[in-house]
């Protein structure tokens, strides 16, 4: 009998970085959405915002399944974050480079999800990065300051292939971490 594995992966990041958009782009089932009308257009001007979670699913050619969860990005829903982090095997951290203070916003999530991020089982996708090398360097420096070994990618969450690239990179990353546990000299 072939054992089918299930992996729980978590999309993390602030309001409007595109967690819901990313999960919707790649899920093979209509995603479970808990988006409602956004009444705080000042924080981020968009129609809807997630108040509980996103949930989507991908079946790999091997038959293994990815369960994709997204957090609600607004701080007042932070009580949901540890519940969703529980049992996750890796994190897709998303950022929006066009925010007024992108690094301060990111720090909230670097702190809140440090227990997984510090293991390296994570990748980071940066959106709306208008070929600004300096900004990408800034993100990498911030990750260095936290001593998080996480690869960064410039992406557009609306593009399925970009999100799949992140998932692919996350699996590579998880393998690297597991190999280094097996062979501590590496």
């Amino acid at each position, binding site marked *: 009998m072939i054992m089918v594995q299930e992996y729980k992966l978590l999309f993390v990041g602030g309001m409007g970085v595109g967690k819901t958009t990313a999960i919707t782009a790649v899920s093979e089932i209509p995603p*479970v*959405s*808990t988006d*409602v009308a956004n009444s705080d257009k*000042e*924080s981020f001007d968009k129609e809807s915002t997630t*108040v509980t*979670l996103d949930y989507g699913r991908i079946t790999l050619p091997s038959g293994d399944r990815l369960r994709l969860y997204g957090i609600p990005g*607004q701080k007042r829903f932070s*009580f949901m974050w540890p519940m969703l982090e529980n049992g996750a095997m890796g994190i897709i951290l998303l950022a929006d480079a066009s925010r007024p203070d992108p690094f301060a916003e990111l720090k909230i999530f670097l702190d809140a999800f440090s227990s997984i991020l510090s293991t390296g089982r994570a990748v980071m996708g940066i959106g709306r990065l208008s070929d600004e090398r300096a900004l990408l360097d800034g993100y990498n420096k911030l990750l260095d300051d936290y001593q998080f070994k996480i690869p960064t990618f410039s992406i557009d969450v609306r593009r399925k292939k970009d999100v799949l690239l992140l998932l692919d990179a996350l699996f590579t990353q998880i393998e690297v971490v597991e190999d280094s546990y097996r062979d501590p000299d590496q």
Partner: protein
Amino acid sequence: MDPLLIEKMQQLQIKKLLETTYREISSIQLIVLASVDGFNLATSGSKAQDFNLPEKFAAMASSMAALSQAAGKELDANHQSVTILDFKGLQIVLRIVKTSTNTFILAIAESKEIILGNLLVKARDCAQNIKEALQ
């Protein structure tokens, strides 16, 4: 920062309506009108002054209402009106309040000194009064 979903005058009016319900049921710990995305708009109840509790309760009410809506949708049920949570010594009722322009959530936590049916009737009446005040 809280968005200006309803005007200051309306906010006072709604607070009065919540206080009226609290006066009628003194075992209400919290009664909150929340925006559908979890902002606390008005509060009353014995724990209304507890630090940050009304804000947290409003956010949680919005999460729970959205999750029960999502569960209903999976089972082909639409038009959710009430979510009920039952604990030892506590019951929580979440009621959707729809006006022509907005959706709100009326959330009541009560110490189970009255029966659920009565609490539901009070929640319905309070929601109706809020709706009228906001039209």
